[in-house]
């Protein structure tokens, strides 16, 4: 690294977690500042987490003061006070530690060229976590701008081991050469799979049945992080552990919806060594090195090798000692997936999606911010932008479309000439219309769009904030409803302004809030390993007896999916025909496939009634028996049906909302805004409808479709699968459900509809049920129908078993700290 620094070369350092790589990135800067003291910013450090910057500042300050270096080190983020910002403007520190958003704000100031005039080095931490995300796109554009302002500055990227090195190199390179420095891997982690002794569950994803096993392992180790896949799972597992925790081992909960102060308390307790375990979601995937973590337990499907390695790396940050981790599968398919992950880790087979091209909504935001900083020539800005890795393939035509959107909306109807945000002077330089527009643009900086959130607070004067809930969940509560949140059982009282007021305790079955997003599909590599294991009975010896029996029975009653074909089972049950396809392409792709299959079956007269998708399987049921299944899976289903469905799907509406906010089409919903004022702000769903009808090729709709194709609909993966299995669809007709199909059938009823047609059907059904219940109508003779056209709707809640009484509200010292005397 020092070589690269002395040569002024840009470099990418790839090292497993715990290699001390962050400080390595700073060493050359300290040496330079010692040799040639300067004023102004010499080194800029950018990381995805504020906490990382704070931690690095702390670690730098110690050596700097010990060596009596005249080097100033400061952080800057959204939390930095106005007075401190003003002082930083006056006297910039030599080393500034910041986030992508705060950097974008600095670069949008007219003083940016002065601020970064003496910049020599830019350190980007956790590059692997930024590349391929919208925050990463924003940072890449900022790096390109910095390369213009301070061409002499070298860049240092710090990354964990990744599958796509070239993309990360291009990201850090900004169009120039990059020296790659790779630190060899340390000891391979020790992984083992653990199950509750008695029974391997057929379905379910929470892993609660293994709570006792998990508690045993916590007891046997010093400090454990128990990773889960969703916040709802975190809440449930936390409760399940405490129900068994008779010795009251200090076990805490950590997830992204908890109050920030609460999270900081948990983190502080972890670093002090006061905790024995933390149940955590991806909120602890990245972040500060917690030196004292002895083991990691992953509960539920690992989903991918890279993701598992990242999590396992949270334990034992020493190169010479192997990390220890335990995988706890929640059901039978997850046993296969965990075994596949263990093999994948042993083979160092990294996975995950390659970074996608930069988002056009982020580009729109950036263009407006650049105009706010300084007038520009489109030619110059285009050249600068295409140096940014994620935008290197941006065409001039697309750039012009985005620019024209920022200027006047870019509508075919030239209605907004009077309201344009940018105008061009005689030399063709693009300027911003007014200081007010520049100010608004700076207020809208950022690429994270939260769902509307409400604060959760205990009623009463001493009631502290517990965290935040999605508004969609909160508004469906009625007074007296109980729900689990922040490791407590809460009784809903009312919503006041933007706050959900609750009391502690309560009766009845509690609900667990679920949150949109955060559900990763199984990676292709892991899926391929699962398929290979299924096909090869010789590899089954590692499985528990129940799993082996299950697979053997499948072999006997039906057949096993091959490594390269598509197994489709067709069987009758309860007067319906079930078609189960073993695709292994992840939930998102399966949801899309389900939508398309039902449309096609509808046309074929098969009268489809519904479908359900898991990470492994898609099951569709219909009134009539499907004949030619190979035709059902033909590739051409990705044509008009896909278009028609995508346009109507609420997934696209949600995606459009994010795109519209990031691109600056509508302002961010300011927290605390009066609910009656919402009538006045323009609803993005309505904008979407109008835009789709009048200008379907508008740049924001293009951006929306691109986002959806790689994200929630996973069309790319579906297309690859359909192409692969053409001519290899193997149909098995059975007289009854097959062993392998049982798990997916048990999932029926958890997944549901959202589509305008079906909404009407659901409203009609509910209306009729109410009328029936009130004696206003005769009971319906029709059997209840699950409606044909389903789409990926994240089930709003999961219900718990009614028979279990509510657990006591005692808990760990941490999760009740607000009630301590």
């Amino acid at each position, binding site marked *: 690294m020092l070589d690269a620094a002395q040569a002024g070369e840009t470099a990418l350092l790839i090292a497993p977690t715990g290699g001390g790589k962050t400080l390595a990135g700073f060493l050359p800067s300290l040496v330079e500042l010692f040799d040639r003291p300067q004023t102004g910013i010499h080194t800029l450090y950018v990381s995805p987490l504020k906490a990382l910057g704070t931690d690095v500042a702390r670690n730098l300050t110690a050596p700097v003061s010990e060596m009596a270096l005249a080097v100033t080190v400061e952080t800057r983020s959204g939390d930095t006070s106005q007075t401190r910002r003003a002082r930083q403007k006056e006297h910039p520190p030599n080393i500034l530690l910041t986030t992508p958003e705060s950097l974008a704000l600095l670069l949008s100031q007219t003083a940016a060229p002065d601020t970064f005039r003496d910049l020599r080095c830019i350190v980007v931490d956790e590059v692997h976590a930024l590349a391929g995300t919208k925050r990463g796109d924003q940072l890449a554009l900022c790096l390109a701008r910095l390369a213009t302002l301070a061409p002499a500055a070298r860049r240092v990227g710090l990354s964990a081991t990744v599958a796509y090195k070239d993309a990360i190199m291009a990201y850090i390179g900004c169009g120039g050469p990059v020296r790659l420095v790779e630190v060899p891997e340390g000891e391979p982690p020790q992984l083992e799979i653990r199950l509750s002794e008695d029974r391997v569950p057929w379905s379910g994803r929470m892993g609660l049945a293994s709570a006792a096993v998990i508690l045993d392992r916590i007891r046997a180790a010093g400090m454990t992080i128990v990773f889960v896949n969703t916040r709802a799972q975190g809440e449930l597992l936390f409760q399940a552990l405490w129900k068994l925790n008779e010795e009251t081992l200090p076990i805490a909960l950590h997830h992204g919806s908890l109050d920030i102060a609460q999270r900081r308390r948990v983190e502080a307790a972890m670093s002090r060594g006061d905790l024995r375990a933390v149940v955590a979601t991806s909120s602890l995937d990245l972040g500060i090195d917690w030196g004292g973590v002895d083991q990691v337990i992953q509960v539920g499907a690992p989903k991918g090798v890279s993701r598992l390695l990242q999590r396992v790396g949270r334990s034992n940050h020493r190169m010479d000692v192997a990390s220890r981790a335990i995988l706890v599968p929640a059901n039978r398919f997850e046993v296969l997936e965990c075994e596949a992950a263990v093999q994948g880790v042993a083979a160092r087979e990294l996975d995950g999606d390659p970074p996608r091209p930069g988002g056009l909504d982020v580009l729109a935001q950036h263009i407006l911010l650049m105009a706010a900083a300084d007038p520009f020539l489109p030619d110059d800005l285009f050249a600068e932008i295409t140096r940014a890795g994620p935008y290197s393939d941006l065409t001039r035509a697309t750039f012009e479309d985005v620019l024209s*959107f920022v200027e*006047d*909306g870019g*509508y075919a*109807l030239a*209605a*907004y000439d009077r*309201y344009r*945000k940018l105008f061009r002077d005689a030399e063709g330089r693009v300027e911003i219309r007014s200081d*007010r*527009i520049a100010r*608004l643009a700076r207020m809208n900086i950022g690429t994270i769009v939260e769902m509307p959130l409400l604060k959760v607070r205990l009623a009463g004067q001493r009631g502290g904030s517990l965290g935040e809930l999605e508004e*969609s969940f909160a*508004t*469906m509560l*009625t007074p007296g409803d109980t729900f689990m949140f922040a490791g407590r059982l809460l009784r809903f009282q009312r919503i006041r302004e933007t706050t959900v007021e609750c009391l502690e305790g309560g009766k009845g079955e509690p609900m667990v809030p679920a949150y949109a997003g955060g559900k990763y599909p199984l990676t292709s590599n892991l899926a391929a390993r699962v398929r290979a294991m299924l096909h090869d009975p010789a590899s089954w010896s590692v499985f528990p007896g129940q799993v082996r029996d299950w697979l053997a029975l499948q072999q006997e009653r039906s057949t096993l999916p091959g490594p390269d074909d598509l197994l489709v089972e067709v069987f009758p049950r309860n007067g319906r025909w079930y078609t189960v396809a073993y695709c292994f392409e992840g939930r998102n792709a399966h949801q899309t496939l389900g939508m398309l299959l039902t449309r096609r079956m509808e046309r074929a007269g098969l009268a489809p009634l519904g479908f359900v998708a898991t990470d492994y399987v898609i099951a569709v049921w219909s009134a009539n028996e499907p004949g030619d299944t190979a035709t059902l899976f033909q590739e051409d289903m990705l044509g008009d049906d896909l278009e028609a469905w995508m346009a109507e799907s609420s997934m696209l509406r949600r995606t459009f909302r994010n795109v519209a906010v990031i691109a*600056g*089409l*509508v*302002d961010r919903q300011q927290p605390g805004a009066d*609910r*009656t004022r*919402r*009538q*006045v*702000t*323009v*609803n993005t769903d*309505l*904008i979407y*409808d*109008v*835009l789709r*009808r*009048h*200008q379907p090729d*508008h740049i924001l709709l293009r951006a929306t479709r691109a986002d959806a194709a790689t994200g929630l609909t996973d069309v790319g993966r579906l297309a690859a699968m359909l192409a692969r299995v053409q001519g290899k669809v193997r149909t098995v007709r059975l007289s009854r459900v097959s062993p392998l199909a049982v798990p997916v059938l048990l999932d029926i009823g958890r997944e*549901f*509809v*959202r589509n*305008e*047609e079906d*909404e*009407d059907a*659901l*409203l*009609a*059904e*509910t*209306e009729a*049920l*109410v009328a029936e219940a009130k004696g206003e109508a005769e009971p319906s003779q029709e059997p209840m129908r699950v409606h044909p056209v389903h789409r990926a*709707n994240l089930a*709003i809640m999961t219900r718990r078993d009614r028979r279990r009484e509510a657990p006591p509200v005692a808990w760990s010292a941490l999760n009740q700290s607000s009630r301590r005397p």
Partner: protein
Amino acid sequence: MTAAPIHLAGNRLMLDPAGALWWPERKLLAVADLHLEKGSASALKGNLVPPWDTRATLDRLALLIRRYTPRTILALGDSFHDADGANRLMPADATRLRAIAASHEFIWLLGNHDPLPPDGLPGTTAEWWEASGVVFRHQAGGAGPEICGHHHPKASITTRAQTITRPCFVSGPQRLMLPAFGAYTGGLDVRHPAIAKLFPRGGRAFLLGKERLFAFTLGQSAAMQSG
């Protein structure tokens, strides 16, 4: 499209699933909160949202006029998003709106967003309008039977699969509140005190659907849980 009948002060009124009121006896069509030119009002503030909102709203109004061939059209206030809205109409939209207003008895009630009579558009302007014992006004406030808009009511119903939110009519013994008709108009939940206090003796919400309305008593909104 199936309209639903309700009775207010002895008058039979039809609620159209498109969000408009049809009074057959008087051949009167009423729409609330058109908020025309809301798009350009946003653009003025720096949010360049698509400019077709006025056209979309007029398209929907034209459909209703074809269906019912009304003698009278009554706009229940907030017809323009702001006082200057009528001046910002694009020429084609202005011509179309003028033609509609000129070929019917057109009554513009004043709203809080547009407290002045619309510039240069045909029709009569009033604070309120009365017929057969029913008063039309933008914002509810009278004691007697009245028809109002202003709040953009919407309601959420929890079905077995998900919670569904739609704009709605709200109907009580003394009052009918219309949903907003404009293309870019959001809504306020019927449980919000601003709406709930106008229906102290309860009422029914009629949620807009593609082909028909869906009726629920006010207490059921968002509380209704079906098996």
